[in-house]
Protein backbone atom coordinates (compact mmCIF):
# COMPACT_ATOMS: atom_id res chain seq x y z
CA UNK A 1 0.00 0.00 0.00
CA UNK A 2 2.79 2.38 0.93
CA UNK A 3 3.85 2.96 -2.67
CA UNK A 4 0.29 4.03 -3.54
CA UNK A 5 -0.02 6.45 -0.66
CA UNK A 6 -0.91 9.92 -1.82
CA UNK A 7 -0.08 11.75 1.38
CA UNK A 8 3.00 13.90 1.77
CA UNK A 9 5.65 13.05 4.33
CA UNK A 10 6.26 16.29 6.17
CA UNK A 11 9.41 17.31 8.00
CA UNK A 12 10.68 20.35 9.88
CA UNK A 13 12.58 21.17 6.69
CA UNK A 14 9.73 21.00 4.17
CA UNK A 15 6.87 22.18 6.39
CA UNK A 16 6.93 25.78 5.17
CA UNK A 17 6.99 24.91 1.47
CA UNK A 18 4.57 21.99 1.63
CA UNK A 19 2.07 23.35 4.14
CA UNK A 20 2.38 27.06 4.78
CA UNK A 21 2.89 27.97 1.12
CA UNK A 22 0.44 25.42 -0.26
CA UNK A 23 -2.26 26.66 -2.61
CA UNK A 24 -4.58 23.94 -1.35
CA UNK A 25 -5.90 23.41 2.16
CA UNK A 26 -3.71 20.97 4.08
CA UNK A 27 -4.56 18.41 6.72
CA UNK A 28 -1.51 17.57 8.86
CA UNK A 29 -1.53 14.39 10.92
CA UNK A 30 0.98 14.66 13.80
CA UNK A 31 1.84 11.09 14.75
CA UNK A 32 4.53 8.74 16.04
CA UNK A 33 5.31 5.07 15.63
CA UNK A 34 4.63 4.30 19.30
CA UNK A 35 1.17 5.88 19.38
CA UNK A 36 -1.70 3.38 19.42
CA UNK A 37 -4.52 5.75 18.44
CA UNK A 38 -2.33 7.01 15.56
CA UNK A 39 -2.44 3.52 14.09
CA UNK A 40 -6.21 3.53 14.29
CA UNK A 41 -6.45 6.71 12.28
CA UNK A 42 -3.63 5.94 9.81
CA UNK A 43 -5.76 4.06 7.25
CA UNK A 44 -8.33 6.88 7.30
CA UNK A 45 -5.61 9.39 6.50
CA UNK A 46 -4.52 7.29 3.53
CA UNK A 47 -8.11 7.06 2.26
CA UNK A 48 -8.64 10.79 2.62
CA UNK A 49 -5.42 11.49 0.72
CA UNK A 50 -6.78 9.40 -2.11
CA UNK A 51 -10.29 10.87 -2.10
CA UNK A 52 -9.22 14.50 -1.82
CA UNK A 53 -6.40 14.28 -4.34
CA UNK A 54 -6.26 17.53 -6.30
CA UNK A 55 -8.52 19.31 -3.79
CA UNK A 56 -6.62 19.19 -0.53
CA UNK A 57 -3.19 18.07 0.55
CA UNK A 58 -2.84 15.47 3.28
CA UNK A 59 0.45 15.30 5.16
CA UNK A 60 1.89 13.19 7.94
CA UNK A 61 4.50 14.50 10.33
CA UNK A 62 6.40 12.15 12.63
CA UNK A 63 6.78 14.16 15.84
CA UNK A 64 9.79 12.14 17.03
CA UNK A 65 11.86 13.16 14.05
CA UNK A 66 10.41 16.63 13.60
CA UNK A 67 10.04 18.08 17.07
CA UNK A 68 10.36 21.73 16.01
CA UNK A 69 7.13 21.83 14.07
CA UNK A 70 5.24 19.95 16.77
CA UNK A 71 6.55 22.37 19.40
CA UNK A 72 5.76 25.38 17.26
CA UNK A 73 2.10 24.40 17.00
CA UNK A 74 1.78 23.43 20.65
CA UNK A 75 1.12 19.79 19.86
CA UNK A 76 1.23 17.87 23.14
CA UNK A 77 -1.03 14.94 22.25
CA UNK A 78 -1.08 12.66 19.29
CA UNK A 79 -2.75 12.10 17.04
CA UNK A 80 -3.38 15.81 16.55
CA UNK A 81 -4.86 16.85 13.24
CA UNK A 82 -4.37 20.45 12.17
CA UNK A 83 -6.15 21.94 9.18
CA UNK A 84 -4.24 24.70 7.38
CA UNK A 85 -5.47 27.21 4.85
CA UNK A 86 -3.29 30.00 3.49
CA UNK A 87 -0.62 29.18 6.03
CA UNK A 88 -2.92 29.46 9.04
CA UNK A 89 -4.39 26.83 11.34
CA UNK A 90 -8.13 27.06 10.74
CA UNK A 91 -9.34 23.92 12.49
CA UNK A 92 -8.02 21.15 14.68
CA UNK A 93 -8.86 17.79 16.22
CA UNK A 94 -7.10 15.95 19.01
CA UNK A 95 -7.41 12.18 19.17
CA UNK A 96 -9.14 9.81 16.82
CA UNK A 97 -12.26 10.86 14.98
CA UNK A 98 -14.56 9.12 12.52
CA UNK A 99 -13.63 9.53 8.87
CA UNK A 100 -16.90 11.31 8.26
CA UNK A 101 -15.92 14.07 10.66
CA UNK A 102 -12.53 14.55 9.01
CA UNK A 103 -14.03 14.47 5.54
CA UNK A 104 -16.63 17.07 6.53
CA UNK A 105 -13.93 19.39 7.84
CA UNK A 106 -11.91 18.96 4.66
CA UNK A 107 -14.98 19.54 2.50
CA UNK A 108 -15.67 22.74 4.36
CA UNK A 109 -12.22 23.95 3.31
CA UNK A 110 -11.78 22.31 -0.06
CA UNK A 111 -15.22 21.46 -1.42
CA UNK A 112 -16.58 18.04 -2.31
CA UNK A 113 -14.05 15.38 -3.26
CA UNK A 114 -13.92 14.47 -6.94
Amino acid sequence: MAQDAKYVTLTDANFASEVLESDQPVLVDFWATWCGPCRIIAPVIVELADEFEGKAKIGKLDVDHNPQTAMQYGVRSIPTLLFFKDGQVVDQLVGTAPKKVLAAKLEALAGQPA
Partner: protein
Amino acid sequence: MEGIDFGSAEHRKVVIIGTGPAGLTAAIYSARANFAPLVIQGPEPGGQLITTTDVENYPGFPDGIMGPDMMQMFEKQAERFGAELRWGTVTSVDLSQRPFKLIVDEETPVTADTVIVSTGASAMYLGLENESRLLGHGVSACATCDGAFFREQNVAIVGGGDTAMEEALFLTRFASKIFLIHRRGEFRASKIMQDRVLSHEKIEVLWNTTVEDIRGDKLVEGLVIKDVNTGEVRDLDVEGFFVAIGHTPNTDLFKDFLDMDETGYIQTQSDSTYTNIEGVFACGDAQDHIYRQAVTAAGTGCMAAIDAERWLADQEA
Protein backbone atom coordinates in the same frame (compact mmCIF):
# COMPACT_ATOMS: atom_id res chain seq x y z
CA MET B 1 -35.13 7.57 14.70
CA GLU B 2 -37.16 10.15 12.79
CA GLY B 3 -36.33 10.69 9.15
CA ILE B 4 -34.49 7.41 8.71
CA ASP B 5 -36.07 4.82 6.42
CA PHE B 6 -35.69 1.34 7.84
CA GLY B 7 -37.53 -0.22 4.90
CA SER B 8 -34.37 -1.22 3.08
CA ALA B 9 -32.10 -1.38 6.13
CA GLU B 10 -29.34 -3.95 6.24
CA HIS B 11 -30.32 -6.80 8.57
CA ARG B 12 -28.04 -9.01 10.68
CA LYS B 13 -28.69 -11.80 13.12
CA VAL B 14 -25.97 -10.45 15.37
CA VAL B 15 -24.75 -6.88 15.67
CA ILE B 16 -21.93 -6.14 18.08
CA ILE B 17 -21.37 -2.59 19.27
CA GLY B 18 -17.80 -1.84 20.35
CA THR B 19 -14.43 -3.36 19.55
CA GLY B 20 -12.47 -3.79 22.75
CA PRO B 21 -11.59 -7.27 24.02
CA ALA B 22 -15.26 -7.97 24.88
CA GLY B 23 -16.73 -7.04 21.50
CA LEU B 24 -13.99 -8.69 19.46
CA THR B 25 -14.17 -11.92 21.47
CA ALA B 26 -17.93 -11.93 20.96
CA ALA B 27 -17.18 -11.39 17.25
CA ILE B 28 -14.78 -14.35 17.13
CA TYR B 29 -17.32 -16.69 18.72
CA SER B 30 -20.27 -15.38 16.78
CA ALA B 31 -18.36 -15.54 13.49
CA ARG B 32 -17.26 -19.10 14.20
CA ALA B 33 -20.94 -19.93 14.74
CA ASN B 34 -21.53 -18.65 11.18
CA PHE B 35 -23.56 -15.56 12.07
CA ALA B 36 -21.30 -13.20 10.08
CA PRO B 37 -21.73 -10.57 12.81
CA LEU B 38 -21.56 -6.89 11.99
CA VAL B 39 -19.16 -5.26 14.42
CA ILE B 40 -19.48 -1.49 14.70
CA GLN B 41 -16.24 -0.08 15.97
CA GLY B 42 -17.34 3.04 17.77
CA PRO B 43 -15.39 6.22 18.48
CA GLU B 44 -12.47 4.42 20.14
CA PRO B 45 -11.74 1.31 18.04
CA GLY B 46 -9.77 -1.24 20.03
CA GLY B 47 -10.98 0.25 23.27
CA GLN B 48 -8.91 1.18 26.26
CA LEU B 49 -6.05 -1.17 25.39
CA ILE B 50 -5.16 1.07 22.45
CA THR B 51 -3.83 3.61 24.92
CA THR B 52 -1.80 1.17 27.01
CA THR B 53 1.72 -0.05 26.51
CA ASP B 54 2.72 -3.47 27.76
CA VAL B 55 -0.07 -5.82 28.76
CA GLU B 56 1.63 -8.15 31.22
CA ASN B 57 -1.32 -10.05 32.64
CA TYR B 58 -3.09 -11.48 29.59
CA PRO B 59 -2.53 -15.24 29.61
CA GLY B 60 -0.64 -16.65 26.65
CA PHE B 61 1.83 -13.80 26.35
CA PRO B 62 4.62 -14.68 28.78
CA ASP B 63 6.76 -11.76 27.64
CA GLY B 64 3.87 -9.29 27.58
CA ILE B 65 2.39 -7.70 24.50
CA MET B 66 1.67 -4.16 23.41
CA GLY B 67 -2.00 -3.26 23.84
CA PRO B 68 -2.49 -1.99 20.27
CA ASP B 69 -0.75 -5.09 18.87
CA MET B 70 -3.01 -7.34 20.88
CA MET B 71 -6.12 -5.60 19.62
CA GLN B 72 -4.94 -5.96 16.02
CA MET B 73 -4.57 -9.68 16.65
CA PHE B 74 -8.11 -9.83 18.09
CA GLU B 75 -9.42 -8.05 14.97
CA LYS B 76 -7.59 -10.35 12.61
CA GLN B 77 -8.91 -13.39 14.42
CA ALA B 78 -12.50 -12.11 14.25
CA GLU B 79 -12.22 -11.26 10.55
CA ARG B 80 -10.71 -14.64 9.74
CA PHE B 81 -14.05 -16.26 10.59
CA GLY B 82 -16.25 -13.78 8.78
CA ALA B 83 -16.96 -10.99 11.24
CA GLU B 84 -17.36 -7.68 9.46
CA LEU B 85 -15.73 -4.78 11.25
CA ARG B 86 -17.08 -1.42 10.25
CA TRP B 87 -15.78 2.02 11.15
CA GLY B 88 -18.60 4.09 12.58
CA THR B 89 -20.49 4.87 15.73
CA VAL B 90 -23.98 3.81 16.68
CA THR B 91 -25.71 7.10 17.38
CA SER B 92 -29.20 5.90 18.30
CA VAL B 93 -31.03 2.65 19.04
CA ASP B 94 -34.57 1.46 19.39
CA LEU B 95 -34.67 -1.71 21.47
CA SER B 96 -38.39 -1.52 22.17
CA GLN B 97 -39.28 -4.14 19.55
CA ARG B 98 -37.65 -6.76 17.39
CA PRO B 99 -35.89 -6.60 15.08
CA PHE B 100 -33.91 -4.00 16.96
CA LYS B 101 -33.16 -0.76 15.15
CA LEU B 102 -29.78 0.94 15.12
CA ILE B 103 -28.55 4.04 13.34
CA VAL B 104 -24.86 4.33 12.50
CA ASP B 105 -23.30 7.80 12.23
CA GLU B 106 -26.76 9.41 12.27
CA GLU B 107 -27.60 8.15 8.79
CA THR B 108 -27.23 4.43 8.16
CA PRO B 109 -30.01 2.17 9.44
CA VAL B 110 -29.26 -1.39 10.53
CA THR B 111 -31.64 -3.94 12.01
CA ALA B 112 -30.66 -6.86 14.19
CA ASP B 113 -32.18 -9.95 15.78
CA THR B 114 -29.69 -9.74 18.62
CA VAL B 115 -27.50 -6.92 19.85
CA ILE B 116 -24.35 -7.43 21.87
CA VAL B 117 -23.44 -4.29 23.79
CA SER B 118 -19.69 -4.05 24.32
CA THR B 119 -19.27 -0.29 24.36
CA GLY B 120 -16.83 -0.35 27.26
CA ALA B 121 -15.83 2.59 29.36
CA SER B 122 -13.88 5.78 28.67
CA ALA B 123 -11.52 7.90 30.70
CA MET B 124 -13.13 10.48 32.92
CA TYR B 125 -12.00 14.07 33.19
CA LEU B 126 -12.27 16.41 36.15
CA GLY B 127 -14.73 18.61 34.29
CA LEU B 128 -12.83 21.89 34.58
CA GLU B 129 -13.33 24.43 31.84
CA ASN B 130 -9.60 24.92 31.31
CA GLU B 131 -9.14 21.17 31.16
CA SER B 132 -11.16 20.81 27.97
CA ARG B 133 -9.70 24.01 26.55
CA LEU B 134 -6.13 22.77 27.01
CA LEU B 135 -6.79 19.17 26.01
CA GLY B 136 -4.03 18.21 23.61
CA HIS B 137 -2.00 21.20 24.69
CA GLY B 138 -0.65 19.82 27.91
CA VAL B 139 -3.78 18.17 29.29
CA SER B 140 -4.03 14.47 28.49
CA ALA B 141 -5.83 11.35 29.65
CA CYS B 142 -3.19 9.11 28.08
CA ALA B 143 0.36 9.21 29.39
CA THR B 144 1.43 6.46 27.06
CA CYS B 145 0.21 8.49 24.10
CA ASP B 146 1.55 11.84 25.09
CA GLY B 147 4.27 11.32 27.69
CA ALA B 148 7.07 11.71 25.17
CA PHE B 149 6.21 15.38 24.68
CA PHE B 150 7.35 16.12 28.21
CA ARG B 151 11.03 15.19 28.12
CA GLU B 152 12.94 16.88 30.94
CA GLN B 153 9.82 18.72 32.06
CA ASN B 154 7.68 18.69 35.19
CA VAL B 155 4.29 17.05 34.97
CA ALA B 156 1.42 16.22 37.28
CA ILE B 157 -0.97 13.33 37.25
CA VAL B 158 -4.17 13.04 39.23
CA GLY B 159 -5.61 9.73 40.39
CA GLY B 160 -5.12 6.89 42.84
CA GLY B 161 -5.84 3.64 41.03
CA ASP B 162 -3.72 1.24 39.01
CA THR B 163 -4.07 3.36 35.87
CA ALA B 164 -2.68 6.39 37.68
CA MET B 165 0.24 4.33 39.01
CA GLU B 166 0.97 2.83 35.60
CA GLU B 167 0.87 6.21 33.92
CA ALA B 168 3.02 7.88 36.59
CA LEU B 169 5.64 5.16 36.16
CA PHE B 170 5.48 5.48 32.39
CA LEU B 171 6.03 9.23 32.66
CA THR B 172 9.29 8.66 34.56
CA ARG B 173 10.81 7.65 31.23
CA PHE B 174 10.48 11.21 29.96
CA ALA B 175 9.63 13.79 32.61
CA SER B 176 12.20 14.99 35.11
CA LYS B 177 9.65 15.17 37.91
CA ILE B 178 6.17 13.74 38.37
CA PHE B 179 3.74 15.04 40.97
CA LEU B 180 1.11 12.40 41.70
CA ILE B 181 -1.93 14.17 43.09
CA HIS B 182 -4.49 12.23 45.08
CA ARG B 183 -7.46 13.54 47.02
CA ARG B 184 -7.17 10.91 49.76
CA GLY B 185 -4.41 9.79 52.12
CA GLU B 186 -4.04 6.37 50.52
CA PHE B 187 -4.20 4.80 47.07
CA ARG B 188 -6.70 2.18 45.96
CA ALA B 189 -4.15 0.80 43.49
CA SER B 190 -2.72 -2.69 43.85
CA LYS B 191 0.15 -3.11 46.30
CA ILE B 192 2.71 -3.97 43.62
CA MET B 193 1.95 -0.80 41.65
CA GLN B 194 1.92 1.37 44.78
CA ASP B 195 5.31 0.03 45.82
CA ARG B 196 6.80 0.82 42.43
CA VAL B 197 5.44 4.36 42.58
CA LEU B 198 6.33 5.14 46.17
CA SER B 199 9.90 3.96 45.73
CA HIS B 200 10.50 5.92 42.53
CA GLU B 201 12.81 8.88 42.99
CA LYS B 202 11.17 10.98 40.25
CA ILE B 203 7.65 10.68 41.68
CA GLU B 204 6.43 12.92 44.50
CA VAL B 205 3.01 12.11 45.91
CA LEU B 206 0.82 15.02 46.97
CA TRP B 207 -1.68 13.37 49.34
CA ASN B 208 -5.05 14.84 50.30
CA THR B 209 -4.82 17.28 47.42
CA THR B 210 -7.30 18.30 44.76
CA VAL B 211 -6.85 20.11 41.47
CA GLU B 212 -8.88 23.32 41.44
CA ASP B 213 -7.82 24.76 38.12
CA ILE B 214 -5.34 24.54 35.27
CA ARG B 215 -3.31 27.59 34.27
CA GLY B 216 -2.04 28.41 30.82
CA ASP B 217 -2.93 30.38 27.73
CA LYS B 218 -1.98 28.23 24.74
CA LEU B 219 -0.16 25.52 26.70
CA VAL B 220 -0.42 24.22 30.25
CA GLU B 221 1.75 26.30 32.58
CA GLY B 222 0.63 25.00 35.94
CA LEU B 223 -2.11 23.90 38.28
CA VAL B 224 -3.95 25.44 41.17
CA ILE B 225 -4.06 22.79 43.87
CA LYS B 226 -5.70 22.65 47.25
CA ASP B 227 -4.78 20.80 50.42
CA VAL B 228 -8.11 19.34 51.52
CA ASN B 229 -7.07 19.20 55.18
CA THR B 230 -5.81 22.77 55.60
CA GLY B 231 -7.75 24.36 52.75
CA GLU B 232 -4.51 25.96 51.59
CA VAL B 233 -4.50 26.77 47.86
CA ARG B 234 -1.26 27.08 45.92
CA ASP B 235 0.23 27.04 42.44
CA LEU B 236 2.14 24.08 41.09
CA ASP B 237 4.22 24.79 38.00
CA VAL B 238 3.97 21.92 35.51
CA GLU B 239 4.00 21.70 31.75
CA GLY B 240 1.86 18.61 31.51
CA PHE B 241 -1.25 17.46 33.32
CA PHE B 242 -2.47 13.88 33.08
CA VAL B 243 -5.90 12.77 34.24
CA ALA B 244 -6.28 9.20 35.52
CA ILE B 245 -9.28 9.37 37.81
CA GLY B 246 -11.16 6.40 36.49
CA HIS B 247 -13.63 5.48 33.82
CA THR B 248 -17.27 5.91 33.04
CA PRO B 249 -19.29 3.34 31.07
CA ASN B 250 -20.35 4.31 27.54
CA THR B 251 -23.98 3.39 27.98
CA ASP B 252 -25.91 6.66 27.51
CA LEU B 253 -27.18 5.36 24.20
CA PHE B 254 -29.14 2.61 25.95
CA LYS B 255 -30.49 4.44 28.98
CA ASP B 256 -34.10 4.46 27.76
CA PHE B 257 -34.08 0.70 27.34
CA LEU B 258 -31.60 -1.17 29.51
CA ASP B 259 -31.53 -1.47 33.30
CA MET B 260 -28.42 0.14 34.75
CA ASP B 261 -27.03 0.92 38.14
CA GLU B 262 -26.79 4.53 39.29
CA THR B 263 -23.39 5.00 37.64
CA GLY B 264 -24.55 3.71 34.26
CA TYR B 265 -23.22 0.15 34.29
CA ILE B 266 -25.66 -2.17 32.52
CA GLN B 267 -27.19 -4.76 34.80
CA THR B 268 -27.01 -8.33 33.58
CA GLN B 269 -28.82 -11.34 34.97
CA SER B 270 -26.66 -13.50 37.18
CA ASP B 271 -24.39 -16.04 35.52
CA SER B 272 -25.20 -14.66 32.08
CA THR B 273 -24.97 -11.63 29.82
CA TYR B 274 -28.77 -11.30 29.50
CA THR B 275 -30.06 -7.77 29.99
CA ASN B 276 -33.65 -6.88 30.84
CA ILE B 277 -34.46 -6.99 27.12
CA GLU B 278 -34.56 -10.39 25.47
CA GLY B 279 -32.10 -10.56 22.60
CA VAL B 280 -29.87 -7.82 23.98
CA PHE B 281 -26.71 -8.96 25.72
CA ALA B 282 -24.07 -6.90 27.51
CA CYS B 283 -20.43 -7.71 28.12
CA GLY B 284 -17.12 -6.12 29.05
CA ASP B 285 -16.68 -2.89 30.97
CA ALA B 286 -20.12 -1.60 29.96
CA GLN B 287 -21.51 -4.00 32.57
CA ASP B 288 -18.50 -4.60 34.84
CA HIS B 289 -17.26 -2.06 37.34
CA ILE B 290 -15.50 -4.63 39.48
CA TYR B 291 -12.87 -6.50 37.47
CA ARG B 292 -12.41 -4.37 34.31
CA GLN B 293 -9.62 -6.53 32.89
CA ALA B 294 -8.93 -7.43 29.27
CA VAL B 295 -9.27 -11.10 30.12
CA THR B 296 -12.56 -10.70 32.00
CA ALA B 297 -13.93 -8.55 29.18
CA ALA B 298 -12.96 -11.24 26.69
CA GLY B 299 -14.58 -13.84 28.95
CA THR B 300 -17.90 -12.03 29.09
CA GLY B 301 -17.68 -11.33 25.34
CA CYS B 302 -17.50 -15.07 24.78
CA MET B 303 -20.48 -15.54 27.11
CA ALA B 304 -22.51 -12.94 25.20
CA ALA B 305 -21.87 -14.64 21.86
CA ILE B 306 -22.89 -18.02 23.27
CA ASP B 307 -25.96 -16.53 24.98
CA ALA B 308 -26.98 -14.86 21.71
CA GLU B 309 -26.45 -18.04 19.71
CA ARG B 310 -28.57 -20.12 22.09
CA TRP B 311 -31.24 -17.47 22.30
CA LEU B 312 -31.48 -17.36 18.50
CA ALA B 313 -31.69 -21.14 18.35
CA ASP B 314 -34.53 -21.09 20.89
CA GLN B 315 -36.42 -18.53 18.80
CA GLU B 316 -36.22 -20.75 15.75
CA ALA B 317 -37.04 -23.96 17.58
